[in-house]
């Protein structure tokens, strides 16, 4: 965990309101794992926005360049998108616990909704590198204009299925529908599921996985003030009320085993 001011190498729109940003940080690049995240602050002179914003590490390029993939949803991401090559940003990372890798023989199923693709792409890359895993991936986006990273995933030899909510590309519907369909088939080998995306999607997937008794890891996105484990702001209800009642997403997560979360209240 370190704080570093880095210089932006690129920051380009690769889909509607969706940006890929890269910055040089050999130190962070050398220790980043899929599922971990960064807390980023763009403003230098201004106190508005006040807090850093959390972003998953999306990958590493040429050993020294770290990437994030993000979508404009508000003030912070909008300001981020206006930054140009050479501009400085401050980041803290790598934070949180990354994904637990599957055993080399396990069937691996990645399910990404929207920007959930950010950490899962990094995971796919890492898995392919480590063990040449066979990976099935379900991707969901609101509409075709927001679809990103499919070429890169195909280059990685990932078995890809796509949904869009409006049906403008791939199957029409939600990515969780794709998973339901898939799991309703007779499966020879139980998959390990890795999911990241909006909370309602994760809830559906996690509950399905628990019902089917499948190992499932979710990468949660909640509102974070510090990302450092000091404010206790990022609580999620723990499933097992005998132990502690809340997990800290920034410290105990953001990756959780599905059954450790109380999905009822999510």
């Amino acid at each position, binding site marked *: 965990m370190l*704080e570093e001011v880095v210089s932006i190498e690129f920051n380009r729109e690769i889909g509607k309101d969706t940006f890929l940003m890269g910055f040089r940080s050999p130190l962070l690049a050398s220790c980043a794992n899929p599922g971990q995240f960064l807390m980023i602050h763009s403003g230098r002179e201004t106190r508005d926005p006040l807090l850093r914003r959390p972003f998953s590490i999306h990958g590493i390029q040429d050993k020294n360049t770290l990437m994030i993939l993000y979508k404009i949803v508000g003030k912070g991401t909008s300001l981020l998108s206006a930054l140009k090559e050479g501009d400085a940003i401050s980041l803290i990372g790598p934070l949180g616990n990354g994904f637990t890798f599957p055993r080399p023989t396990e069937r691996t199923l990645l399910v990404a909704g929207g920007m959930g693709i950010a950490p899962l792409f990094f995971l796919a890359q890492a898995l392919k590198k480590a063990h040449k895993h066979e990976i099935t991936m379900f991707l969901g986006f609101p509409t075709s204009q927001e679809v990103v990273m499919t070429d890169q995933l195909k280059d990685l030899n990932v078995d890809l299925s796509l949904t869009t909510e409006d049906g403008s590309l791939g199957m029409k519907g939600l990515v969780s529908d794709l998973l339901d369909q898939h799991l309703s088939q007779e499966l020879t080998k139980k998959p390990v599921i890795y999911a990241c995306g909006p909370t309602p999607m994760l809830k559906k997937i996690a509950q399905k996985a628990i019902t089917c008794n499948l190992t499932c890891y979710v990468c949660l996105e909640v509102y974070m003030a510090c990302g450092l484990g000091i*404010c206790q702001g990022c609580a999620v209800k723990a499933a097992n009320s005998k132990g502690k009642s809340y997990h800290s997403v920034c410290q105990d997560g953001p990756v959780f085993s599905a059954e450790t979360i109380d999905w009822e209240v999510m």
Partner: protein
Amino acid sequence: MAVLPDLSVDIGGLRIKNPVIAASGTFGYGDELTPFYDPSLLGAIIVKGLSLRPMPGNPPPRTAETPCGLLNAIGLANIGIEAFIEEKLPSLAKIKTPLIANIYGHTIREYAQMAKRTATVDRIAAVEINISCPNVEAGGMAFGTDPDTAAMVTDQVVKNTTKPVIVKLTPNVTDITTIAGAVESAGAQAISVTNTFLGMAVDVATRRPKLANIIGGLSGPAIKPMALYLVHKVVEAVQIPVIGLGGIMDYQDALEFLLVGARAIQVGTANLINPKTPIEIINGLTDFCVREEIGNINQIIGDLRTKGEGHEKKGNRKDT
């Protein structure tokens, strides 16, 4: 050439090496920010608010950002004073700066019990009484809005511990000086001003409050002018030292509080954004003193100049 200035100050019998203190609830139990710097460099550390028994905290979402501010309704999530003393304190041995326990009780009796528990713990240098938390049902702020109750809590804590007692006030009152006067009379050795301001925010897309608790406490730069005003008022009203806090982000902010008369300052929300803030403030104050040829930080404290009209004195910086 330049001799380093003496930054040490005395807060109600507790001498600290510099006036920069980590505020409760924004610094964990004391060692969480060690990856960024050695916490021993701080004047003191006030640990996360402790209650008699562990508290799980409020349901999420617990935080929301507002313009230049942070709303929180953590609800005093903590492991309880017993676990803190038994399990946490030993691992903080390597931190060479005073640790101050911030305590919160549901009843006056609980405050007294916790005070007693701290009395025999060497590592706890002082007690800060939190009678100002807006995020818990019973007690909390309620104790801090009435002078008599505030005095009763103070009295019980003072009687039950051997440590210097600091009372942390709420800003959510009509006249903070009456509360300050009451806790001074009840034996408080210092006063912290201020805890968070009551606030709320609504997500217009969902039409729901941004905090599950609906209301929360506002902190950060947004509250700085109000906190500064309250410190100014309390400094004028009491004899005991006042510790100023609320929105301090850099050494200039810290100077504002020192100039109105705060003996020391606390850094809260800024820790969440830039963990190194307290160190940057210590360095900034040191450089400022060197630049202005100030040998002792106490020369700045209370040196607000209010005579004369207008801003004609601008640029007239040196007089030490």
